[in-house]
């Protein structure tokens, strides 16, 4: 496959991988966009739309196939042992997270790196933007990182004049499509190979072969040029060992090896719960993560970073920065919700979840993290009150608990969050309504009165009442249908007639007998 001459970087643009991006015609629902709208529509409306988009069914089928193939929720005896050990290791740090973070900070600094603690996404973005500015960075290559998704780093650096290129193939695909990752580990699981062929074809301004090998080769060639040209490498962190200050990054593609070895500056971004007590724990956690995430014994690459390049070495970054982000997580410590901080981001709960599969992946959750773990984590992070309705996107079937490699009781955490949502002040009006309803139906007379009122309302009010509700009521109503009010009590009337007929028949039969 060859690229046309228009494929090279143009003026002001250094990235080869993103050259031609302006030719891409976005084709995605609003709720799949990279930037999540500040005031999103109610979830029932989004999920209703999600079922009708073209990608929903094929995505469901792919996810269902993965769920079957991998026997998600079952564990071989060998991995079941790792699961017990891993679950214990992940809770060790939760008893005194700050102590482990201090220890990690000391170790990382001894290794010659700079540690930055950030309470909020804004603080994290500011630190990274400053590092980029101080080093005259114009092009950054990034290996997959959910923490940087959480702080919307790409948009921020772009605004600062820094191009950021996602180098994980799935992340590159969603970046080009101006979308968010729809799965923690497989960001482009909702894309078919035809979708990717079309997307890359638009980027190249030429027709491309639809073979996955060829598509990957296309991405490889373009991304290689950027690995070589980039001034800054940005990565996430899967595990950070407090005792040695080792930052472990797990990939299959090898992009983390590129990102952490070729650019002259490396910024690693982690959230507070990624710290683990000991380097040796990697021997348990890496195989456990890989089994849960992709059913591999281990992934192809584990990139362990112990500091910047040392004297005499010819590659590796001259500067290493570690950004440790809280974003609301430590609020959960000491509460039952702290269990969510044991998560190792394998994405297994997402694949196991019938709701996640049915709505076509994580996008309809309208949060950075979708699926069961997203429904627990998202309300915790960011502004209070945001995403508090996400825990209702679950059937509480428990598959996510079975699928969790570190045994997080996700269904329990969802129920806790539902209770919190219901007791929030905003739910006060709804509660008063339920209470009034309960009082009215406490007596037969009350119940019959509401039926009569409904019949009357059905005669007086227009049929398409819900469609005519004003303001926000219309949005709410668009996802709902009202039963025909005129027929209120129809079943009771039918039953009464049925009862009378049966009584009459019995009387007749009795006479005959």
């Amino acid at each position, binding site marked *: 496959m060859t690229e046309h001459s228009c494929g090279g970087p143009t003026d002001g643009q250094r990235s080869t991988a993103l050259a031609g991006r302006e030719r891409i015609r976005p084709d995605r629902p609003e709720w799949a966009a990279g930037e999540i709208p500040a005031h999103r529509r109610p979830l029932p409306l989004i999920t209703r739309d999600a079922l009708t988009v073209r990608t929903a069914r094929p995505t469901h089928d792919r996810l269902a196939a993965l769920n079957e193939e991998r026997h998600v929720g079952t564990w071989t005896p060998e991995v079941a042992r790792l699961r017990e050990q891993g679950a214990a290791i992940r809770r060790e740090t939760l008893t005194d997270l700050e102590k482990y973070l201090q220890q990690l900070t000391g170790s990382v600094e001894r290794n010659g790196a700079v540690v930055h603690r950030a309470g909020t996404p804004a603080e994290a973005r500011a630190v990274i933007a400053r590092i980029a500015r101080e080093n005259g960075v114009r092009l950054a290559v990034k290996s997959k990182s959910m923490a940087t998704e959480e702080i919307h780093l790409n948009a921020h650096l772009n605004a600062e004049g820094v191009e950021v290129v996602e180098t994980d193939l799935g992340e590159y695909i969603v970046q080009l499509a101006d979308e968010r990752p729809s799965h923690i580990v497989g960001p482009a699981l909702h894309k078919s190979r035809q979708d990717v062929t079309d997307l890359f074809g638009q980027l190249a301004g030429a027709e491309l072969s639809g073979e996955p090998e060829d598509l990957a080769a296309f991405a490889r060639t373009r991304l290689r040029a950027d690995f070589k040209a980039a001034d800054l490498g940005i990565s996430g962190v899967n595990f950070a060992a407090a005792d040695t200050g080792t930052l472990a990054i797990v990939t299959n593609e090898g992009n983390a090896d*590129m990102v952490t070895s070729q650019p002259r500056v490396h910024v690693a971004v982690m959230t507070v719960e990624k710290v683990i007590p000991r380097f040796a724990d990697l021997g348990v956690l890496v195989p456990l993560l890989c089994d849960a995430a992709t059913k591999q014994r281990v992934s192809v690459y584990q990139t362990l970073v112990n500091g910047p390049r040392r004297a005499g070495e010819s590659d590796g970054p001259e500067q290493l920065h570690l950004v440790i982000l809280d974003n609301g997580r430590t609020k959960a410590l000491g509460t039952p919700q702290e269990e969510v901080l044991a998560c190792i981001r394998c994405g297994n709960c997402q694949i196991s979840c019938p709701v996640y599969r049915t709505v076509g992946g994580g996008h309809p959750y309208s949060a950075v993290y979708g699926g069961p773990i997203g429904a627990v984590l998202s309300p915790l992070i960011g502004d209070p009150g945001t995403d508090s309705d996400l825990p209702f996107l679950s059937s509480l079937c428990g598959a996510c608990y079975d699928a969790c490699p570190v045994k997080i009781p996700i269904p329990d955490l969802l129920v806790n969050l539902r209770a919190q949502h219901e007791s929030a002040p905003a739910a006060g009006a709804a509660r008063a309504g339920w209470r009034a309803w309960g009082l009215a139906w406490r007596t037969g007379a009350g119940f019959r009165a509401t039926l009569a009122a409904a019949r009357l309302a059905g005669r007086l009010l227009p049929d398409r009442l819900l469609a005519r509700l004003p303001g926000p009521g219309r949005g709410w109503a668009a996802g709902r249908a009202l039963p025909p009010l005129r027929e209120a009590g129809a079943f009771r009337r039918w039953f009464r007639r049925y009862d009378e007929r049966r009584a009459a028949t019995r009387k007749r039969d009795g006479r005959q007998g």
Partner: protein
Amino acid sequence: MNQELAELFRDRLAEAGGSAELTASHDEALSLVREWAGDRPVLVDDHPDLTGLEVAGDRPPDPWDAEVGVTGVLGAAADTGTLALGPAPGRPRGTAVLPGTHLAVVPLSRLHADYAALIMALGRLDPLPSGLQLVTGPSRSGDIESAMIQGMHGPRAVRVAVYPDR
């Protein structure tokens, strides 16, 4: 015991898409590597286990132009088929990831039974190198409809010669 471990390593590396040959001596391992490398542009790490290796290909001035990278290892794990490499002067991180083919030699004395044992051994290194690269087979991606693609950003081929050293 060592022979069994070596066979397990070979089988598990093959499952991950790479390949290993069990040789009778260090010399035999080196001559296999020379043969595998051919006359392609090559990067060879400055590693004691590679002393005496002569390869036909030129060393390109820009490491990105190399087609083959040859390394030694700090250790390996049999049950996963994993190689562990650490950077040092003369052993850049790029050797194992920039070229399309990665060739390595593994002495039996550094082949550990399992991944956890390899991690333990690496953790005992004092000082730890500035980085550690754990590599299990060729680079791959499953991001397009979960179809397995070999050779995404890193090498398409990983070939290992195992030799007895005691």
